[in-house]
């Protein structure tokens, strides 16, 4: 296959895989079977398309092929077919399949989003399943993304699929009155993928750009499917506005560069523009949601020409709103850091010290790092050193460790 054909086939698969899988799960009510025949159909496409050319309706071609493979498999395995038939009767009775015109695939990925993020599944399983089914990552790729052995990830995915099948987690879109309860879970899964991409929880690299990009792609799909849900716009805005700084967050050797030292000329302007527009969407027409507020904070950072001219009072106010929406010690830490920028290090430090009893912050290295920074700024070197040391004890990735060690080294020479 020549390179161009290869690229176009790949992009077709990327676009169509989730859609195809969703459609097949909907039809057969079985994620395993759907995955298997999706792979079969893509394999068949890899054989035929380079020779015959990419068909006019690649999605329909793949669906027809996959359905044929599914029927073949069900013929081979009668017991399996009988069990599926029982499931299928119920599914049809509950929700007859919508007719669809001239081979166009109905987009059933929304159901797949809600199935993969069902609260009855363990949180890690939800992330794995979403990446596998909607992101189209292979099991070894998902394993690599989360730095676990492929066998562990395979087990996790098998376990999740088994629960979906045996406990009969339905493949459906929640009704409008259920959405407020279920949508945050879907958004959380996407955001978890992003945050792992933004700051890897362990390993040699600070960022996993592939994961961040995948999270943004998933949020775009979800927004297309549920355009009226403003928190999806908020989440997409947040991720774009943060991801816009990706190239300046590390130096040429992979070391951390703080916000105040980043070359703002190199921030991704088109992402910032798109993100800022989405913030307006997210915050217009009703009470703000937590992602919209966080996106607004990110937008204020991105739009400032430097740290000094950043609108810290506004950022502090937004963190105050965020705290009422999602009271959490981590948000309180961020607010305290913003307060330090607005009112000075001593006031910020007092706000941080007020959180010292929070058990969740004991192992949260950014808390100890923030204390270290403010203590150092106030000239309290000994206290700063011990705060940096506490942060070092619980730090995640290698670049974060290196950054802390550098800070510690910079602080120590001042000691008597």
């Amino acid at each position, binding site marked *: 296959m020549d390179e161009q054909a290869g690229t176009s086939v790949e992009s077709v698969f990327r676009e169509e895989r989730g859609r195809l899988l969703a459609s097949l799960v909907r039809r057969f009510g079985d994620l395993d079977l759907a995955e298997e025949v999706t792979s079969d159909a893509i394999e068949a496409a890899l054989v035929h398309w380079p020779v015959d050319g990419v068909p006019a309706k690649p999605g329909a071609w793949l669906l027809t092929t996959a359905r044929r493979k599914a029927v073949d498999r069900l013929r081979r395995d009668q017991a399996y077919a009988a*069990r599926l038939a029982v499931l299928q009767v119920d599914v049809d009775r509950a929700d007859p399949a919508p007719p669809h015109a001239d081979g166009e695939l109905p987009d059933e990925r929304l159901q797949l989003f809600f199935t993969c993020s069902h609260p009855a599944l363990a949180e890690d399983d939800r992330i794995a399943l979403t990446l596998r089914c909607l992101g189209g990552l292979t099991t070894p790729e998902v394993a690599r993304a989360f730095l676990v052995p492929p066998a562990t990830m395979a087990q996790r995915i098998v376990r999740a699929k088994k629960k979906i099948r045996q406990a009969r*987690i339905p493949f459906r879109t929640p009704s409008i009155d259920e959405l407020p309860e279920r949508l945050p879970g879907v958004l959380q899964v996407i955001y978890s993928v992003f945050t792992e991409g933004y700051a890897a929880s362990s390993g040699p690299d600070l960022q996993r750009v592939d994961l961040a990009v995948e999270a943004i792609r998933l949020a775009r799909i979800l927004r297309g499917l549920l355009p009226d849900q403003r928190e999806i716009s908020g989440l997409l805005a947040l991720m774009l506005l943060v991801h816009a700084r990706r190239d300046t967050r590390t130096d040429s050797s992979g070391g951390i560069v703080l916000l105040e030292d980043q070359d703002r000329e190199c921030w991704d302007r088109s992402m910032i523009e798109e993100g800022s527009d989405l913030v307006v969407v997210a915050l217009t027409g009703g009470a703000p949601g937590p992602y919209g507020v966080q996106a607004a904070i990110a937008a204020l950072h991105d739009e400032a020409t430097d740290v000094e001219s950043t609108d810290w009072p506004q950022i502090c106010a937004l963190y105050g709103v965020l705290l009422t929406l999602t009271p959490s010690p981590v948000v309180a830490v961020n607010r305290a850091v913003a307060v330090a920028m607005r009112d000075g290090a001593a006031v910020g430090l007092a706000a941080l010290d007020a959180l010292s009893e929070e058990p969740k912050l004991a192992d949260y290295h950014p808390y100890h790092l923030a204390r270290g920074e403010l203590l150092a700024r106030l000239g309290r070197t000994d206290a700063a050193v011990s705060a940096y040391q506490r942060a070092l004890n619980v730090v995640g990735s290698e670049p974060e460790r290196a950054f802390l060690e550098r800070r510690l080294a910079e602080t120590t020479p001042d000691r008597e």
Partner: protein
Amino acid sequence: MKYMLLIYTAPGGDTEPQCTFEDWQLYDKEMKDAGVWVSGDALADLSTTTTVRVSQSGEKTVTDGPFAETREILGGYDVIDVPDLDAALAWAARCPGARDGGSVEVRPLAGFGD
């Protein structure tokens, strides 16, 4: 699809307001009216429990009390027949036993034998 709702009550000594008898009556009636109720009952007081074990050699041991001391106590169960887990979870959420620090465990019955 049949699901068993295992209703656990909060640990003893909890003085928070508990559901009334009428709440339970209403819940039972709602399940029956909806046609999802298969079977169910409340269990007698935990102090009436006796546990039986049989060893590999066939020796029988009878002891007072439940098998394991847990913080929550199994107080009753219902078996319902609904299309999927979401429907079962919705019924579990309406159960008075899910409130006041209690919880309801939802387990599908292994109907297909796999």
